């Protein structure tokens, strides 16, 4: 219980720091919010008036305070480009992106774990070399390059799947998955390569331990030794790495969603950055960092379920 309280306090502090860093980075922007709203040709008096009414002339501390109070009370302000309230806009895009994140993580894990096990069990044989080399290629290709290749193959040549666009899961679930599949695959392939390497190296270090020799000595079937005894202990570290990769995923979705014109969180962030929509940049960057941090917290808590030896303290 004390652990949870401490941990939550630390989360609150980190969120505060995240908001501070986000605000600081975006306020170095040489751009002028008032100018973005009214255009470069607007008259100086109107600009000054707008600046005053938006509170841009206040000291940074006051502006930060107003922003953070807005975040806490649910008033996230308006996007300059989309002319919409930021809160609902982001919520909508988070739902869209979670489809891609979950799908790509599922694709990655369901291939990476068996492949990593296969490589580790056949260490230094052709199976291992094949799996390891494939994984090495996987971590070396930029994911947008995967994306381009997938568009060429599945959308242009074979015509099986759409190459761009987004369908809301509430309207047409099957259509939503069809549209999310190629971007998820593009993200999942790189992720899969990382996780395969991790599964292999973790399992290798476990297979060398005494209790595995003991399990073999007492005549357990090899399948039981690998899947029950060894993998049970490898799942924790692999899960932690998978959790850490969520951060990497949220970086990559900016590129992948833009490539596939999939209107999720990554696409929104990109539009905000391209158009220097400062209020929207602040909110998207803050939300992504917060999601990444909370995911890692959840993974830490889940860890105790997977591995009861670990006590939270």
């Amino acid at each position, binding site marked *: 219980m004390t652990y949870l309280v401490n941990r939550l306090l630390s989360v609150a*502090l*980190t969120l505060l*720091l*995240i908001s501070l*860093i986000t605000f600081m*980075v*975006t306020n*170095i*922007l*040489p751009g002028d919010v008032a100018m973005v709203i009214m255009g470069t040709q607007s008259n100086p008096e109107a600009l000054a008036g707008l600046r005053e009414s938006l509170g841009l002339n206040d000291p940074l501390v006051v502006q930060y305070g107003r922003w953070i109070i807005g975040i806490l009370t649910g008033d996230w302000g308006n996007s300059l480009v989309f002319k919409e309230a930021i809160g609902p806009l982001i919520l909508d895009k988070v739902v869209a992106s979670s489809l891609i994140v979950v799908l790509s993580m599922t694709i990655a894990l369901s291939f990476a774990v068996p492949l990593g096990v296969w490589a580790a069990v056949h260490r230094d044989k052709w199976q291992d070399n094949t799996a390891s080399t494939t994984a*090495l*290629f996987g*971590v*070396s*290709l*930029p994911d*947008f*390059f995967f994306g*381009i*290749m997938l*568009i*060429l193959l599945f959308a*242009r040549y074979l015509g099986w799947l759409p190459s761009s666009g987004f369908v809301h899961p509430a309207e047409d679930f099957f259509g939503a998955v069809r549209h999310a599949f190629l971007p998820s695959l593009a993200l999942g392939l790189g992720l899969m390569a990382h996780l395969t390497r991790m599964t292999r190296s973790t399992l290798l270090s476990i297979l060398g331990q005494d209790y595995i020799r003991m399990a073999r000595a007492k005549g357990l079937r090899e399948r039981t030794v690998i899947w029950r005894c060894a993998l049970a202990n490898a799942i924790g570290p692999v899960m932690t790495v998978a959790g850490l990769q969520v*951060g*990497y*995923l*949220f*970086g*990559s979705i*900016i*590129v992948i969603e*833009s*490539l596939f014109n999939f209107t999720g969180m990554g696409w929104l*962030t*990109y539009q905000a*950055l*391209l158009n*220097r929509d400062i209020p929207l*940049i602040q909110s998207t*960057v803050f939300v*992504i*960092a*917060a999601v*990444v*941090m909370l995911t*890692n917290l959840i993974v830490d808590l889940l860890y105790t379920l997977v591995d009861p030896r670990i006590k939270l303290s």
Partner: protein
Amino acid sequence: MKQFLTGKGIFGGCILLLVVAVALFAPLLIPDTWATQMDMRARLSGPSLAHPLGTDQLGRDLMYRMLLGAQTSVMIAGTAVLMSLVIGLPLGVISGYFGGWIDNVLMRLVDTLLAFPALLLALTISAVLGPNLTNTIIAIGIAFTPYLARIIRGEALRVSQLPYVEAARSVGTSHGKMILRHILPNIMPPIIVQATISLAFAILAEAGLSFLGLGTQPPDASWGLMIQASRDYLDIAPWTALVPGAAVAITVLGLNMFGDVLRDVLDPRIA
């Protein structure tokens, strides 16, 4: 030395030598005009004798553009990693060596920065500063700093608890001398390994930034920029994406292979 002579080590090393040689010498040997000369009659043409790797949408030779782009991509990645080392090394060493509240404050900051995906941080900084070559380096350099600082701090902490450091402390060695003579030399191997792997990520990050138009800007040629330009012509001229894509992939593959072998040799604990 013998340990480097595995298939992976030789292959990775050769790729690296090739890429560095191209980055250094291509700009000296190939006149700029070869890569910028537009041949409007040969737009988006496939590989031929005149253009061994085909041409782009303006009829420019892809092979020359790829060779000259190597310099931009390698230079940006190398300088960015160097920059994150220059900032991350003192941060990490001070944090790990002194511990206490300095460590707490610095690592809290580093952990917070780690919550920002590296690419997102780099994109934001680049958009904030205005995309160009220098700012791309700064953006990637800052985005990678927390990762390196975290690893360096862990190593410094480990080494500063070893008996020989305690022995040196007991004879009154000053902090400065301790860090320079005893800590730094012993934490270098894992840092070199990490820097090599970071280089691979930096090449990918530069390609990603340029692909989104928030990295290198024309007329500079970079691999990410070439892939971006190819997007509209994928149907009729897939090689315009394949050539720069393969260049990125091969370079990163070489770095990763070399990094793997380097880790086996320098840092056998993790291997």
